[in-house]
């Protein structure tokens, strides 16, 4: 019998919609877990996939090696570690060693053998690491299997398509393997690493310099140890006439009559908010559109499934006047505005016209939602900053900081760096 509980709540920014159709409403679902803090954490089955392409030379690889050694020292003898190096070929340096004294010595030797080489077969490196972790998982099913991929570049060898890679990462999450990613420096592909972490139920991390690699890796270890549940999934069952889309940084699948959202791991005190934009159809006044929400997850130790108590949200179709007079739920408006903020920061892509149009659309929605909502001033200020710099090219570091900020903010995750950036105005350069 587990004392860990999965909690789910949901509600709408406004619960009435025009019977004549065309109303847009926001459904905000909140998923969290609670459990005994003293519960022993599950052992970790961790796989490190380390990019050793030529671009990792010049200090980044040395920093990654130092961080990996620090990780070994912090792992307990119950934990297992695999280390895989990849450039345009893949080399398994350590397979599922328990981190006792002997295992640590073997890991040290493996990490010392890392040296910069050629291109970046990122998918192959991830796959080989996931395979090592899966093999260890088959031998020790009570461990919590995780892959952490470190890369400073773009996939340029083997499978490179972001969508296809994310499908495979999601498929392995469904089969128990969590994936987190760590982008090193300013040259990594934040969209690919972000998509992998979202589909993999883990976190996207960023390390601008060598020193931050260790902070982030230790943070990932801490997350792996303290997660109350993993592989949390939210399922939203929709009536046939109602169209919905997910806003923000969550991987999801559209199923017949339902949307399945990958929420990922949940730490004590962490709440993940998923925002859905609903396009309400026309219907008879007084009729209702019932949306059913359910969530499930697995416990890290032993993989026992738990589920949250299902909840419903109902949109009622009414006449024009009644619709116009209804109050807004300000907290949910703010949550929806936050989700749009995340989209803006993640889509912001220099001079790309499509991205710019998307940003402008999202800005308009954000401003509509945030107007008059207490606590939304910061969002409006940041929206103004984005609008001012919309036609300027951001440098790579600014773009990565913005992407990471949007992702972390939307997913309710912590920036694991010792000196996380405060707000958008700290990272966006003043207008020239």
């Amino acid at each position: 019998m587990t004392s860990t509980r999965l909690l789910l709540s949901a509600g709408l920014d406004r619960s009435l919609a025009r019977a004549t159709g065309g109303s847009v409403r926001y459904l905000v679902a909140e998923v969290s877990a609670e459990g005994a803090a003293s519960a022993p954490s599950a052992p970790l089955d961790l796989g490190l996939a380390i990019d050793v392409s030529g671009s990792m030379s010049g200090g980044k690889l040395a920093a990654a090696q130092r961080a990996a050694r620090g990780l070994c020292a912090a792992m307990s003898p119950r934990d297992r570690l695999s280390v895989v190096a990849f450039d345009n070929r893949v080399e398994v340096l350590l397979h599922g060693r328990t981190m006792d004294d002997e295992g640590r010595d073997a890991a040290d030797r493996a990490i010392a053998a890392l040296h910069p080489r050629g291109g970046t077969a990122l998918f192959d490196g991830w796959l080989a690491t996931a395979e090592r972790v899966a093999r260890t998982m088959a031998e020790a099913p009570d461990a919590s299997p995780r892959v952490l991929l470190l890369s400073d570049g773009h996939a340029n060898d083997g499978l490179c398509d972001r969508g296809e890679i994310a499908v495979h990462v999601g498929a392995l999450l469904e089969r128990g393997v969590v994936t987190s990613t760590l982008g090193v420096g300013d040259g990594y592909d934040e969209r690919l690493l972000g998509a992998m972490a979202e589909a993999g139920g883990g976190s996207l991390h960023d390390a601008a310099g060598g020193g931050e690699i260790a902070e982030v890796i230790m943070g990932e270890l801490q997350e792996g140890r303290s997660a109350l549940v993993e592989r949390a999934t939210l399922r939203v069952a929709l009536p046939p006439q109602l169209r919905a889309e997910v806003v923000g940084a969550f991987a999801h699948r559209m199923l017949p009559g339902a949307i399945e959202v990958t929420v990922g791991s949940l730490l004590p005190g962490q709440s993940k908010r998923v925002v859905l934009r609903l396009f309400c159809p026309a219907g008879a006044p007084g009729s209702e559109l019932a949306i059913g929400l359910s969530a499930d997850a697995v416990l890290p130790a032993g993989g026992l499934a738990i589920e949250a108590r299902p909840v419903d949200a109902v949109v009622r179709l009414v006449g024009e006047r009644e619709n116009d007079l209804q109050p807004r739920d300000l907290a949910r408006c703010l949550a929806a505005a936050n989700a749009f903020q995340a989209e803006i920061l993640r889509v912001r892509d220099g001079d790309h016209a499509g991205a710019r149009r998307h940003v402008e659309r999202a800005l308009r929605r954000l401003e509509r939602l945030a107007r008059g909502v207490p606590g939304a001033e910061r969002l409006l200020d940041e929206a103004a900053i984005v609008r001012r710099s919309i036609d300027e090219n951001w440098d790579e570091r600014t773009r990565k900081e913005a992407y990471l900020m949007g992702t972390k903010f939307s997913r309710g995750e912590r920036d694991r760096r010792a000196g996380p950036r405060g707000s958008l105005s700290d990272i966006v350069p003043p207008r020239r």
Partner: protein
Amino acid sequence: MKTDEDRAEDGPTLSDLAAASGVEPRTIRSWVAQGLLPPPLVLGPGARYPMEAMQRLLAIVAMREDLGMSLSDIRRDLLVADATEIAAHAARFARRRTMPQPARARGADGRDALDYIARLRGGAGNPPTARPPPDTGLAALEQRLGGGLPPSARRARAETWLRMPVTPDVEISVRGPLDAEQRARLERCADLLRDILLGTLK
């Protein structure tokens, strides 16, 4: 604008229906024969069913297993159920799927992580990805107008006929093509007819 053939390509196959519901394919075929489910849009191997067949099937399973209803009672209830009520039953099914159970770290295809990776390395092809969501707006209306029924034999004479289900036993057939407004008017006629037939006219 979607044709019947396009719609037929979008719909679930018998295997999709069986995988999503856990109901044996032969049982699904028998429910089709009993009129509980709409027939496939096209016949033969790989036949595809109308999109709404999935909701209806999940609703039937939930009504049987959660509410203990007989098939004849389900048939009677579905005769008068509107789309919202069917969706509510289907939502109950979705919840049943997430009841606590020992986690099997396997995908819907029954493969574990190592099987999946081996298959990937063997080049056996990618697992099926989720189908796109049901169409909405005009396309959804068209789907609703034409869905759930086999293509009209009269199409062979190069005429377009739209068929609008009123109840599972009554339909309206109209020779097209019709524009969106005409279809919307027709939909209101079908609603009125439904209310008259079911005695729910206020």
